[in-house]
């Protein structure tokens, strides 16, 4: 193994070809094909917007709340798609694992690539939507990719860890589905953090330290409005800023180490 071999020629070819195949297969046989991928966060947004913004009057105090909400649903869709595809990657490609020798992490990475492509296109939709909504473009938009990368690293770490366990214990995917449901409410997607902060500052702080929440808030801050609560402006403490990043790196390291050890026996256990 080791770093030099991580992306040697053969692995690069394999990663590219598997990504292409995944992408083709996913949207084949459906009438709207690839459009579905783009429509998913938009439709989720439409439903949430009607229920929460129109009926329950959430986010009236936030400028550009629709864009704010759409950013949240887009990043959330990306995270859930990345993790669930990553976790199932080994089972989907069991035939390859049983018959060819290759570094298995390629499976997890290629499975998440479709989500990355979808996100890139969806972010363009978000930007167009923001411009229509009257958000002024600014240089801070350039920071967005870094936060997206942070979210991707977290999703990849979860994919490695849970994906490796899922080879042996197939319950993991069902458990993760439940976790995703719970996480959705633990992350400020539909509700603004201000709503929590008004009742309990501690709760708001805990919610913000979740890397998913931190990323969503930071993207909103840099993309839409500086009237967004972020870890940075809420804690006023550099140590707090590091916590979500430490969590992300810890998940990735544990995931990578465990995956590397477990992957030696994937061919026997799959």
């Amino acid at each position, binding site marked *: 193994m080791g770093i030099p071999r991580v992306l040697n*020629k*053969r692995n690069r*070819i*394999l990663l*590219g*070809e*598997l990504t*292409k*195949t995944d992408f*083709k*297969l996913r949207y*084949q*046989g459906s009438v709207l094909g690839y459009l579905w991928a783009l429509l998913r966060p938009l439709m989720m947004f439409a439903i949430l917007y009607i229920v929460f913004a129109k009926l329950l009057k959430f986010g009236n105090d936030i400028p550009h709340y629709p864009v704010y909400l759409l950013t949240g649903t887009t990043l959330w869709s990306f995270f859930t798609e990345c993790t669930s595809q990553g976790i199932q990657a080994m089972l989907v490609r069991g*035939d*390859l*694992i*049983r*018959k*060819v*020798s*290759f570094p298995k992490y390629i499976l997890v990475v290629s499975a998440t690539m479709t989500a990355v492509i979808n996100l890139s296109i969806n972010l363009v939709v978000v930007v167009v939507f923001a411009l229509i909504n009257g958000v002024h473009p600014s240089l801070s938009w350039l920071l967005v990719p870094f936060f997206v990368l942070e979210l991707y690293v977290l999703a990849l770490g979860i994919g490695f860890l849970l994906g490796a366990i899922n080879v042996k*214990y*197939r*319950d*993991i995917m069902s*458990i993760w589905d439940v976790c995703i449901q719970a996480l959705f409410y633990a992350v400020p997607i539909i509700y603004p953090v201000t709503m929590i902060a008004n009742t309990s500052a501690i709760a708001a702080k805990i919610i913000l330290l979740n890397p998913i929440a931190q990323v969503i808030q930071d993207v909103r801050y840099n993309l839409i409005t500086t009237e967004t609560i972020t870890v940075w402006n809420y804690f006023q403490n550099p140590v707090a800023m590091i916590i979500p990043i430490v969590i992300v790196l810890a998940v990735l390291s544990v995931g990578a180490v465990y995956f590397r050890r477990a992957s*030696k*026996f994937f*061919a*026997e256990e799959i």
Partner: protein
Amino acid sequence: MSKRKIGIRKEVLLLDSPYAIEVKKLSKSFRLPTERSWGLKQAIFNRLRGIKGYKDQKVLRDVSFNVKKGEFLGIVGRNGSGKSTLLKILSGIYYPEKGEITVNGSLVPFIELGVGFNPELTGRENVYLNGALLGFSHKEMDAMYEDIWKFAELEQFQDQKLKNYSSGMQVRLAFSIAIRAKGNILILDEVLAVGDAAFQQKCNEYFASLKGKQTVILVTHSMENVKKFCDRAIMIEDGKIVQDGDPKEVAEKYMELFK
């Protein structure tokens, strides 16, 4: 979960060594679930009751042999004797449990033809995907593309989905891609056992062309092929080598098993 032992598998490039593959005291066992221990609940339950939840099944015991460069080695044995496990360990798919394997040169395994073939993709797309698994880039595949289809005699089906191919057609296409692979050591697991007479003829010509040029390890049940192609043969029984040497003698010994 007790930690499992792992032996050594090395890939080297030694020009002065006479051997393409060296296997020293290789052992392997599989963990077979004893009762239904598939799933988290059962795993926790087993642990609480102090049950392992699996049984170690010895598949290979202290197997040692060398393969010289350019040698055509046949491996025979009845079903379940451990041949395929041995091939998978040589190919790096399974990890050895004990012992040491040295592979000298680049090894190309054909455990099965058409690995990664997807019925929902077209013939064309499958060719590139399968090629990628053999380590060929898109560009390299472009260069071989016409030849692959010509050899398979399936040019007019390129853009059909693979699910519309007959199984014989799929095998022909897969074989046609497989023989492009470049490596100094080829590992073949019963790929001869499929296809019609014409296809068998093609396979035989291919193997005859390899003889003396490349190191080949062939697992087969066809004693005719063992006698025809192999310079040497090994018979495995119950995870151990019971005979190693002249293909004719090994073939006879193998036939005795079924008397």
